[in-house]
């Protein structure tokens, strides 16, 4: 049964993605185990007694060789058991799962707004190339990508929450909340995230669309006397899908970084804040678990981008 080439390519990419995730887990585990300096000392601080250091080393299993520890950790991860948090002895998985849900909800909401907005702005600035809309958009994006996310956060709180009380400055979400209330609660952090990601995504989308608009077949379409909008919709956009999708996925790295900062600024119970707190507490098992989940989400998204760009490429969809 010969697979349609696109399906074969997609399967290849998925296999590559899984391999990458496995390698990433090795990197994260080794990153936290073999670095110089005694992990137990780093966690308990200098004035810790020898006895407490010994018990912690035992608890972390630092005495066994790294390889066996890695595989036992990996086995646990595969069964969904991410180990026990050092600081409060609670199992990591349940707390992490809820917080991952919150983070994905926030990042998803931001992406759902940022992606179409970036493409729209990209189209507008290509349509009015080098005229005032293009210059204005470029100036604004230059500003937003140069401003640190936490400054954006506080400016937005000051104006939209304190000064004009449109949206709550506090974005706590809890179980009983309705979907609408949840959206209302994360209004401000989504705005900040969109601003943080929009700049990068818009600049690259503009370049991708510009590249397509300057191709020969768009000129042919123009020479066929089609309306500008028909040219963009029927000829430019179908070919812009693959490069734009790649650009969007490339920028999700900024979204991940933005989420961490925004969660700290808005005290949002997501994975970003959970990771930052436990890094400060030097709670190695939690940091490993969070690192792995972030990597998995990121690799997964890149995988989706790869597959979408394969599907969008006519050469692959209709082989010779």
């Amino acid at each position: 049964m010969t697979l349609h080439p696109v399906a074969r390519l997609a399967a290849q990419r998925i296999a590559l993605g899984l391999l990458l995730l496995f390698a990433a887990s090795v990197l994260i585990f080794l990153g936290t185990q073999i670095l110089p300096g005694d992990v137990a000392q780093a966690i308990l601080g200098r004035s810790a007694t020898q006895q407490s250091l010994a018990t912690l080393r035992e608890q972390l299993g630092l005495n066994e060789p790294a390889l066996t520890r890695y595989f036992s950790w990996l086995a646990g991860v595969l069964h969904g058991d991410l180990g026990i948090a050092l600081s409060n002895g609670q199992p990591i998985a349940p707390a992490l799962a809820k917080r991952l849900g919150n983070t994905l909800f926030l990042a998803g909401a931001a992406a759902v707004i940022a992606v179409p907005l970036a493409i729209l702005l990209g189209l507008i600035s290509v349509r009015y190339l080098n005229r005032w809309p293009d210059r204005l958009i470029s100036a604004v994006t230059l500003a937003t990508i140069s401003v640190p996310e936490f400054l954006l956060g506080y400016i937005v709180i000051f104006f939209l929450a304190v000064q004009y009380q449109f949206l709550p400055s506090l974005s706590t979400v809890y179980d009983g909340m309705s979907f609408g209330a949840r959206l209302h609660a994360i209004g401000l952090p989504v705005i900040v995230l969109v601003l943080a990601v929009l700049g990068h995504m818009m600049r690259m989308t503009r370049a991708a669309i510009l590249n397509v608009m300057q191709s020969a077949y768009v000129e042919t379409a123009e020479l066929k006397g089609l309306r500008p909008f028909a040219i963009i919709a029927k000829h430019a956009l179908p070919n812009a899908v693959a490069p734009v999708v790649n650009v969007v996925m490339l920028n999700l790295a900024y979204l991940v970084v933005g989420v961490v900062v925004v969660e700290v600024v808005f005290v949002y119970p997501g994975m970003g804040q959970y990771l930052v707190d436990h890094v400060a507490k030097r709670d190695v098992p939690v940091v490993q678990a969070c690192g792995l989940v972030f990597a998995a989400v990121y690799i997964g998204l890149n995988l989706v981008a790869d597959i979408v760009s394969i599907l969008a490429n006519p050469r692959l969809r209709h082989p010779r």
Partner: protein
Amino acid sequence: MMRLPVSALIGLCLTTAYFAAALLAPLIAPFGVAEIVGQSWEPASAQFWLGTDSIGRDLLSRMIWGGRTTIFVAAAATALSFGLGSVLGFFAAVRGGWVDQVLSRLVDLLMSIPSLISALVVLSVVPVTIPVLILVMGILDSTRVFRLARAVAVDIAVMDYVEAVRLRGEKQGWIIFREILPNALSPLVAEMGLRFIFAVLFISTLSFLGLGVQPPMADWGGIVKENKEGIVYGIPAALVPALAIATLAISVNLVADWVLDRTTSLKGGRNAR
């Protein structure tokens, strides 16, 4: 001297001002970095041009010392990432074969984890000092420089003039430094500006999260964190460092855009804009 577009002019002036302040910090800072001189959050006055911070330290001195740390760490990290990234990138492009494969796959792996997350993972086990921060940021960022350098070098290596030189029997040293490097330099220089901005934002974010520069040392991100209670009331101690980060990033951005324009037009007619 070329007639500078106004935006590049502003960018250049601001950037040089910041770098000068960073270099001359010990001379021009009125007080020590952690010297407690007044009340908390005093407004700007003749004695304290920018007022004081949350525990009464002169904000202007702290901004100057903080700027010195931010710019020094960002510059050092960028230098490390460029040194490491471009040399390995060129080497992989010219050598090709398994060297190229191994290096490229390793870079793919490192880039499969967002840089902030990898930094946090590493910082959770090692003592957070300035050299460690520079090392972590430098290595993580060198992956992106590697990819650019390798791509640029591969583009050049397939050019006929490199093949002609190889046919002549020239050694690899000559090929890299006399044929590839001069042409690869302009895109890399423009990218250096962007990487520096990334480094400034990265160290500021780490410090804001409390995991970057540890007190009593200070950098701009750290100062924002120390005074973040006041930010909603427009206290300068919180706004000034954040605006400094933004203006530094914007001005370097303007200069980098101008450098990119000038170098691509110089690249022998083929305006690869």
